[in-house]
């Protein structure tokens, strides 16, 4: 009997309300997998962001354990010591490390936080954190030539994402996806593998770029707009690409389709640093004219208690005496100030003062172990329906124009999980589950392949 294999289709940002509810009948291949297997919404990590989420999924370890809280992390308590979360930051064993220790072969394509690529037991094409394709983005290095021969110029990601030229963006998303799936298909046919995984970023990009055209509840939705069906058409395109690959691989292969987080309408942005200035926590002595990132202003650290980072969620840092170079919050007041900020931010409503359900998280409440330098507070404005705007100079707390260009969607805490394993007991086929977690993916893969599951993995085997 042939050795068991697992193939994983990672669809960054694929969201349950579209895959399981709204469009399930329009996605025949995903629906077929659901009918024959186990599926359901899958809880992401905190925060539900591409990095660290894919690494959390592939190690079954939380961000605190990984010491990785976002795309950039403080390397120390200085004010400008932010480093990128590259592959070097992942110190825990990934699924492919564990498989290599059992002589299994892997094909890995586009998994976030895998740049720079390092040796694996098989092949690896790293992710969009690669500067460009002139960089060494594959393992083994000469794989680059094979990629060029198969797809020409490989697209690591879309360029100039913040654009009003939507047709160009749409065309580029399709081209990127077409090439990625073509390459994946070619690898599956021509390389030895026991575990193969692709992460396609196109769904995330199309959500952020086109959500307002699709979601009738979006404040900027216009009926009859030319891109009303752009996201649906693209989901169908991805579904067809998955179907084409499935038709060419052994039917005994276990198939997983997973996403790192979901998506939702972005209602607006909360200008975190403007708010901190207004509330007296952040003091600026000199600021260039216009809207500028915080780091371009001169901060009076001796009068500053806190500052924040922008993004799909906010990270708040406190200026603590004896910790930060010019810290002013004494150790004994640290908890008092942190709790005060948490309560104020949770009470901050929309532009009319209505509650938006902001969640403010203290890292130690959600991470059993904390490594590296975590934020002092993690803020989900409007439970992620509002973005965190880090720039200053907007002269408002609420904004409906993003500081870095158009963006229609924010992340949501639940992604998708679909497992179709021919080895699953028939009773478990077509079961829609709750309680699925991103941490369950790695132990499930190891279990299917018959590899011992390290006891410190945080997830459970789904079967």
């Amino acid at each position, binding site marked *: 009997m042939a050795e068991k294999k697992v193939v994983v289709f990672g669809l960054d940002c694929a969201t349950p309300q579209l895959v399981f509810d709204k469009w399930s009948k329009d996605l025949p291949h995903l629906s077929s997998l659901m009918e024959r297997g186990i599926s359901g919404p899958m809880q992401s990590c905190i925060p539900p*962001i*591409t*990095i660290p989420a894919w690494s959390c999924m592939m190690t079954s370890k939380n961000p605190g354990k990984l010491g990785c809280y*976002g*795309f*950039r992390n403080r*390397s120390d308590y200085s004010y400008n010591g932010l*480093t*990128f979360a*590259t592959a*070097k*930051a992942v*110190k*825990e*064993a*990934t699924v492919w*490390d564990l498989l*290599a*220790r059992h002589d299994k072969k892997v094909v890995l394509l586009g998994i976030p936080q895998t*740049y*720079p690529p*390092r*040796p*694996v*037991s098989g092949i690896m094409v790293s992710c*969009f*954190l690669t*500067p*460009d394709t002139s*960089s060494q983005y594959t393992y083994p290095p000469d794989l680059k030539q094979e990629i060029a021969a198969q797809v020409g110029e490989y697209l690591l*990601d879309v360029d*100039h*994402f*913040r654009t009003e030229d939507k047709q160009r963006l749409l065309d580029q998303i399709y081209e990127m996806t077409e090439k990625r799936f073509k390459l994946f298909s070619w690898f599956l046919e021509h390389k030895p593998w026991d575990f193969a995984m692709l992460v396609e970023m196109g769904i995330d*990009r199309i959500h*952020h770029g086109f959500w307002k055209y699709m979601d009738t509840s979006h404040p900027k939705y216009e009926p009859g707009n030319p891109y009303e069906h752009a996201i649906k058409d693209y989901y169908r395109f991805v579904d067809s690409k998955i179907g084409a690959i499935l038709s060419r691989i052994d039917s005994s292969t276990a198939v997983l389709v997973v996403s790192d987080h979901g998506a939702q309408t972005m209602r607006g942005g909360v200008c975190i640093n403007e708010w901190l200035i207004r509330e007296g926590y952040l003091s600026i002595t000199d600021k260039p004219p216009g809207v500028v990132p915080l780091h371009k202003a001169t901060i009076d650290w001796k009068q500053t208690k806190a500052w924040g*980072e*922008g*993004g*799909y969620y906010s990270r708040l840092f406190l200026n603590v005496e004896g910790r930060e170079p010019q810290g002013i919050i004494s150790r004994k007041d640290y908890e008092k100030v942190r709790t005060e900020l948490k309560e104020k931010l949770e009470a901050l409503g929309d532009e009319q003062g209505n509650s938006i359900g902001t969640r403010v998280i203290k890292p130690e409440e959600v991470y059993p172990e904390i490594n590296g330098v975590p934020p002092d507070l993690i803020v989900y404005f409007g439970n992620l329906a509002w*973005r965190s705007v*880090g720039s200053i100079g907007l002269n408002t707390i609420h904004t409906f124009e*993003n500081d*870095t*260009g158009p*963006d229609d969607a924010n992340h949501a805490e639940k992604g998708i999980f679909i497992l179709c394993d021919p080895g699953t007991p028939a009773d478990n086929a077509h079961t829609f589950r709750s309680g699925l977690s991103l941490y369950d993916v790695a132990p499930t893969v190891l279990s299917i392949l018959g590899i*011992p599951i*390290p*006891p410190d993995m945080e997830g459970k085997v789904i079967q």
Partner: protein
Amino acid sequence: MQSTNAIIILLHSPAEADKQVLEILRQELQNRGVQEICLIAEENQQANSSAEQRAAAIIKGIEEKNLIPSGLQEEEVYTEEEAEKIKKRLEDLGYL
């Protein structure tokens, strides 16, 4: 990198009997309660391969299993120009 209970480096010939040694060792150590065992085997298939070549093959096997720390530190991944490019890309994508 994750700690491993046992790493065994074995130089052996392509003979089937030698390959079985690996599996016997794995089984024996598991029976004795060693949780995770990594066998790094290197076949001396080429009579003219040098000691350096054989050592490099073993190092490659260890690296593929992520058993030793990588050489570069995190901050050394990008040049200054590359770091600026990545920062702009992440801002463009809305992550920062």
